């Protein structure tokens, strides 16, 4: 009898563990509230459909926008640490959707875990009840799909498979590099977005420029340079036979959309296609 109780207890705790596991802290960031509303909206709808509860961090602040490379640049890292600590307080993994936010949060988290100088200084500024030491696990929405929910589960949940649609994945740089810290995928031969495309029933198109630079912020200074990059990327995808390009990055989206000499291919956020495949797109 005692053993039976233990087994039941064990199963209950395990079940609770699973349920807890599907609850995440969620950090949208400023762009997802302004220019990239679709990325956010479709991401939330799809997550709900897949049983993943995204709890937006309360009163979140700017992620820091650009990861500060300077080692003594502490102040610009503090808002990121506040976000990371908020997830730690809830004992949840932190899910991000914007590539840039993800990049900054992941790298600051790595500093807090492994760079004693930054950790000490940041904690001295923040004066948290318990110092933050990089405890939070930061994962991108795509990693949540791959590693937590699973592409097989996603595939099973698809009601509207995008059969016959040839999709080119565009990675950009922020998710992939530096690969040691980001630990997202092989920076030279990533597969996660292609696997995602397969899971929603479409056909991934591999093309050489998928992990090359979109031009980033150079458009501010030299629009021509960004144009050159974007044209190379779009024509490479087009020549490989793609119908459209998807991305997870608002900055890439901006460049591919606004800086193309000629709009040869439509560019969409991956969450829009995800919502479409899951049948939640028309509901909004």
């Amino acid at each position, binding site marked *: 009898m005692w053993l039976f109780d233990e087994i039941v207890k064990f199963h209950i705790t395990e079940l609770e563990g699973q349920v807890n596991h599907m609850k995440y802290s969620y950090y949208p960031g400023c762009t997802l509230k302004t220019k990239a509303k679709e990325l956010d909206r479709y991401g939330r709808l799809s997550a709900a459909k897949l049983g993943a509860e995204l709890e937006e961090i309360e009163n979140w602040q700017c992620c820091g926008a650009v990861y500060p490379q300077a080692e003594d640049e502490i102040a610009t890292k503090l808002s990121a640490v506040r976000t990371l600590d908020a997830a730690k307080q809830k004992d949840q993994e932190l899910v991000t959707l914007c590539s840039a936010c993800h990049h900054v949060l992941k790298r600051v988290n790595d500093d807090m875990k492994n760079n004693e100088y930054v950790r000490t200084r940041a904690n001295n500024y923040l004066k948290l009840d318990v110092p933050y030491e990089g405890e939070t696990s930061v994962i991108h929405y795509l990693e949540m799909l791959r590693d937590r929910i699973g592409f097989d589960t996603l595939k099973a949940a698809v009601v509207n498979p995008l059969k016959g649609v040839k999709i080119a994945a565009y990675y950009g740089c922020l998710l992939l590099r530096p690969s040691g810290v980001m630990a997202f995928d092989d920076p*030279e031969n990533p597969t996660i977005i292609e696997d995602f495309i397969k899971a929603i029933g479409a056909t991934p198109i591999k093309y*050489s420029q998928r992990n090359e630079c979109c031009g980033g912020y150079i458009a501010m200074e030299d629009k021509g340079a960004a144009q050159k990059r974007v044209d190379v990327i779009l024509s490479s995808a087009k020549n490989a036979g793609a119908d459209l390009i998807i991305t997870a990055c608002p900055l890439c989206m901006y460049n591919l959309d606004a800086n193309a000499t000629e709009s040869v291919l439509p560019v969409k956020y991956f969450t829009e296609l995800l919502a479409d495949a899951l049948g939640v797109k028309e509901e909004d």
Partner: protein
Amino acid sequence: MQRIGVFVCWCGSNIAATVDVKAVAEAAKHEPGVVFSTDYQYMCSENGQAMIREAIKEHRLTGVVICSCSPRMHEATFRKTAVSAGLNPYMVEIANIREQCSWIHKDMAEGTEKAIILARAAIAKVHLNAPLVAGTSPVTKRALVIGGGIAGIQTALDIADAGFEVDIVEKAPTIGGRMAQLDKTFPTLDCSACILTPKMVDAAQHEKINIISYAELDSLSGFVGNFTAKIRKKARFIDETKCTGCGICTEKCPSRKGLNDFNMGLNTRGAVYIPFAQAIPNVAVIDSAQCIHFRTGKCGLCEKNCSAGAIKFDQKDEILEREYGAIVVATGFKPIDASAFNEYAYSDSPDVVTSLEFERIMNAAGPTKGKLVRPSDGKHPHEIVFIQCVGSRCTEDATKGKPYCSKICCMYTAKHAMLVREKYPDVKVHVFYIDARTPGKNFDEFYRRAVEQYDVDYIKGMVGKVSVEQDHLHVQGSDLINNEQIHINADMVVLATAIEPDPTARALGTMLTASMDTNDFFTEAHPKLRPVESPTAGVFLSGVAQGPKDIPETVAQAGAAAAKVIGLLCKNELTCNPCVAHANEALCNGCSQCERVCPYGAITYEDKEVRSPEFRGIKRIAVVNGAICQGCGACTVTCPSGAMDLKGFSNSQIMAEVDAICR
């Protein structure tokens, strides 16, 4: 009570600059048993040794402590000095006050204090030293060479020419190794096969050389002069004594799917094959994974067509047991896997090839009969990009590349570039490089010829990406001299892949107890002064197994290793190290723990009759074979009852040293 003399060496300023040598000599005078103490500029010099000899006689010394460099440097020197003055050599102790003291300290006071402590420990130990007498062991006058590439062949030929028997164990079905795959050799551009195959024939025909091909070392026991090797001769399913190498079976074989290893997998071969035309032994081999007979039980076309009746489908692996006095490791290298470097699109396009693949493409006996064509469509290429240092000098990602320079790539790439330009002047050739490293006789002249006479476009900088476009490869790189991005539409890309030790090396190193570095290259006993000997006695190193080298260097090292082997095999007996373990019969209870930790297999057990006040009767007791024991001490620290002890490094001696240091 011992009468101890202490001799403190200055080693010029090496020791004296950080250790007050006079203070050390003075402090030693007050240690118990010390009857004489002095210092001198160079204790290892003839004058210094004379001083030691005189002191031994004059003061009737029974023990000597030398405070100097590491015992690895001069212990043997000072032991000889002691012997010449009538002292047992094992009554000499070295206190290492150079490597372990003066070289690592900056502060004179600290250095002096530590030197005094080290001297004190050595004095405490010598009190308990006892004279030891070294035994001898015989030498088996036969050598084993592992690996039948140019390194192994040259070593074997040199040893055999000196009159000793040599066995070459080669894992492939033929000897010849990597050199047999090369087209031309730098810096003379002579044909590789033309200079290698006569040596292969010499080895095969030499009455003292026995080639055991398609075989691997299974296990090894014994010690220098007395190794016993078990060699696994893999089943080649061909009776070697009957096969004439006519090749009919290889033509008739209907299974054509096996990748041709000799051509780096660029084409296929039959399931029964002879690796290449000049293979030695010129005997076929059956690849049982590809053979239709082994898969379905049918076919047997080779058997039907073999007029010699040499096909033996039921052949089994065979174990040969042979004895050797010396072992030479000549296991060579392989190119690293280029598919880890996704930026160069090796896995994405057949037109991206490695240098060794390119070597086969350029070779008249290769898959294209020496005609330079694109592997994808067989068309003539018009523009080729060579990328150097693929996986070499790679410090950021150890999982992909190697931190070292592979040494041969700059030269073979210059060779390839030149050969292409010579044969096909219409082809544009670019070489991306980090540094062009061409030291060596006539090497830089060779490289300059590629640049100046053959108009090869050398670009200082690395390639960031090779992308596969519809009808070409887009190469994007940087030109560091012009500080600009370069885009080249190439028809072929050739990757100068790093070389790494053969994958069998690691297991072999364990079997031989021969140490290796983190890259799996075998370690030499001394990086400058003993470059062809492994730290394990009786094991010698030849060729790339020890580190990257080109053919001239490999041949030179192969000869040097042979000279060392000959020096060993010339001896009729070897002096053993007397500092070996022994079991105290009264304490040993035969628990077998020492046997388990002994890396040399030196410990066995005997039932002995014991008559002592505590115990009378038959007792199982550990027995150490002094000829096999290397004195490592693993058993002494393992023994739970303290029965195992090491002569020259007894438990009481070590404890005396510790006490002296902690005093």
